[in-house]
Each structure stands twice: as C-alpha cells, then as structure tokens.
C-alpha cells in the first residue's frame, strides 16, 4: 500500500492531458482512499456506518478531483480558489482532509448527530463486540477547541510535519507547536476523566 508521500504532484493531478491524468489519478486514488478510510473509521465508527464511510471518502475524492480539474464546482469562489492555490503535496493532503471532514460532518447532520459528540449512541451505530474499533481517544480529540483536532489529526493520521502544517494552516511553526502541546495536555486530562470518572 502506497504512502501519502507518494501522492502525485497537484500539477500532475490537474493535467488535462489524458495519459498524464489517468496515471496520476490511478496512483492517487488508493492513497486518498486509505487516508480517507482511516479518518472516516475514527469519526464514523461501527459496522452499520461502513457504507457512510465509503460514500464520504468517495465523495471527498470526487470533489477534490473535480476541484483540481476546475469543473462541477458547487461551492463558493473561495473554495474554487482553494483548489487553485494548491501547489504542494502536503497542501493537497490537507485540502483533501478538509473536504473529507466536511463530508463527514454532513453525514452527522443528516443523522441528526451532534458533530462534537462522535461516539456511537444508538444500538444501530454501535460497533459489534468482535469488530476492531477505534480507541475512545479519537472521539475525545474531536471535543478539543479548533484548530487542535485538525492539527492532531493532521499529525497523527495524515502524517504531516509541523512545517507542512504551518504552511497548510497558514500559521507559524511555533503556533502549530503550541496548539499541539495545549491540545495534547487537554486531551490527556479528558482521557483521565473519561477513564476515571470518580477522579474528575
């Protein structure tokens, strides 16, 4: 399985030349799929949501691709400019991640779930006992104040470095480091409270 760093360049993905486009996207699809399913499996946990996860990831890939090719843009001008401004692979990964998060939020809205409360609540959406499920730590990440969840996910799921995050999130490297540190400290407290309610 290819790694995210093996993604083709944004220029290759934007290519209007048939052979280049086909080669670039055939290389990119499995990488985006793997990344997307990782994120989706944390935010849309449970066997019952397998279809939702796949739909979200496929839609995010399609929207990213169409945005890069400059067609079928249903979003705002600022969204179109976001696609135009992508020049690096890490920026591309980050944009894909943002699109995917938006699609996952759509699913939560559709199912009337509160986006901040991502733990499966109903019997229908709860993972079966035999299913490998995400650690309860990730739903807690989602409870942190922005942009900490995005930065933590960018680091631990997408594998971005702090320099790449600084460029992608348009903030200084020290600000990224500070958000990450404060986020991790808060997350540690939330985790302790969740695991030892009597000590909260």
């Amino acid at each position, binding site marked *: *399985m290819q790694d995210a760093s093996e993604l083709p360049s944004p220029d290759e993905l934007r290519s209007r030349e*048939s052979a280049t486009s086909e080669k670039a996207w055939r290389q990119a699809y*499995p990488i985006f799929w793997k990344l997307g399913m990782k994120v989706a499996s944390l935010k849309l946990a449970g066997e019952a949501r397998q279809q939702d996860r796949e739909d979200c990831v496929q839609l995010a890939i399609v929207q990213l691709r169409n945005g890069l090719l400059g067609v079928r843009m249903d979003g705002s001008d600022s969204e179109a400019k976001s696609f135009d401004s992508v020049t690096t692979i890490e920026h591309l990964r980050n944009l894909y991640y943002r699109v995917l998060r938006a699609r996952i939020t759509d699913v939560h809205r559709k199912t009337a779930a509160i986006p901040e409360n991502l733990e499966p609540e109903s019997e229908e959406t709860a993972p079966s006992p035999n299913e490998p499920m995400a650690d309860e730590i*990730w739903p807690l990440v989602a409870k942190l104040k922005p942009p900490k969840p995005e930065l933590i996910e960018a680091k*631990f799921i997408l594998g971005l*470095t702090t320099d790449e995050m600084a460029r992608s999130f348009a903030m200084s490297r020290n600000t990224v480091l*500070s958000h990450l540190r404060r986020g991790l400290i808060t997350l540690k407290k939330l985790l302790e409270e969740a695991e030892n309610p009597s000590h909260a």
Partner: protein
Amino acid sequence: MPEPEPMNEAERLATLQLLGEASEEERERLQALLDDDGELAGEQNGLEALTKRLQTAIPDEEFALPDNVLAALEQDRKEVLEEANALADPKKIIPFSRTQIVSFAIAAAVVFGLFLQFLPDGQNSNVMIASHAVALEMARNYPPIVSKGVTDTESLEHHRTLISHLDQLRESGDSEKLLEILDALPDSAQELPEFKRLRKEAIESAER
C-alpha cells in the same frame, strides 16, 4: 481563532520531541532541561504515552480501494476531463470550425454540380415539366402571323421564348412532348421554318 498561550523553550523542545521532529542537538538540550525539572519530566512522560496511544489507536486495516469503486472513479474522471477540456477550449464546443464549414459548403456545391452534370437528361424532371407546360401554353397562344413570320416586338419575344423552350425539350430527347407542343400551334405558325425543322427532328428522333 484564538492564539494559544506562548511556550517557553523547554515546552517547545519537549513538543518537538513528542512529535518526533527534534534534532540531535535539541534532544540533548531537552534532556538536560528534563534532568533539572522533575515536573516537566513527569508531564513529558504522560504526553509520550498519550502520543503512542494516538498512533496505535488508528485502525490498522489495509483499507484497500475496492475494484468497483476504482472503476467508477476512473470512468467518472474521463468524463470530467472531457468536460474540463471543453471548458478550457470553447472552440471544441462547436462541432465544426469556420474553415471546416466553408470547406463543407464548397464540397457540397461541387457534389451537387456533379450530380446535375451526370443527371440523365430525361430525369431533370422539374425543369422539363415547367418548360413543357410553359411551351404548351405559349404554343396555344401563339400570336397571329401577319406576313412572313412575326414582326412586332412582343410577338417576336413570344416566338423566341417558345423556340428556347422547344430547344430544351429537343435536347432532352422528349420527342413526344415536343410534337404535342408543335401540334398545339396554330396552322399558320406551323408553317414557319423553325417549327418545321423542329417537327422534322422530333419525328426523326421518335423513329430512332
């Protein structure tokens, strides 16, 4: 988006270490600081355990892209690319360029000309039917002969037009119609040399 609290140097180095981005020199400086600061060391230990948990809490599935999804994405990509290329080059939206349209028009004119050229005379029906009808009417209304042939301008024009129509019919080889028209002429007009010649040619043609 609120700015986070600023970090001191020890926290900055400790965070870089947690994220696996500290250089050798930074790791040494951090170790010295941790040796002197038990509270920071304790916090660092807790956060290291947390980051390990974050890394291992990610589902370790392969998440292979299903073939049917790949096929659908690839088919859709081709259509999107075509759309993108059409949007980028508006000329391609028009099926034919101006030059092509002119070329087609010339080619069509040439083909039509060739068609007319090689069309069997007897089947140039529209022209012949019109010519026959006009000529028959003109023969029936042929002006009276005053002396030798026709003399006034109007009658002369009538005579010439009728002769022209009859020539067309003669060239088409339709002797029957030609004779029908000549028969429709008044007796006096039938004696004119032009009509006598045409009658003779039509009869000869019919006999052939």
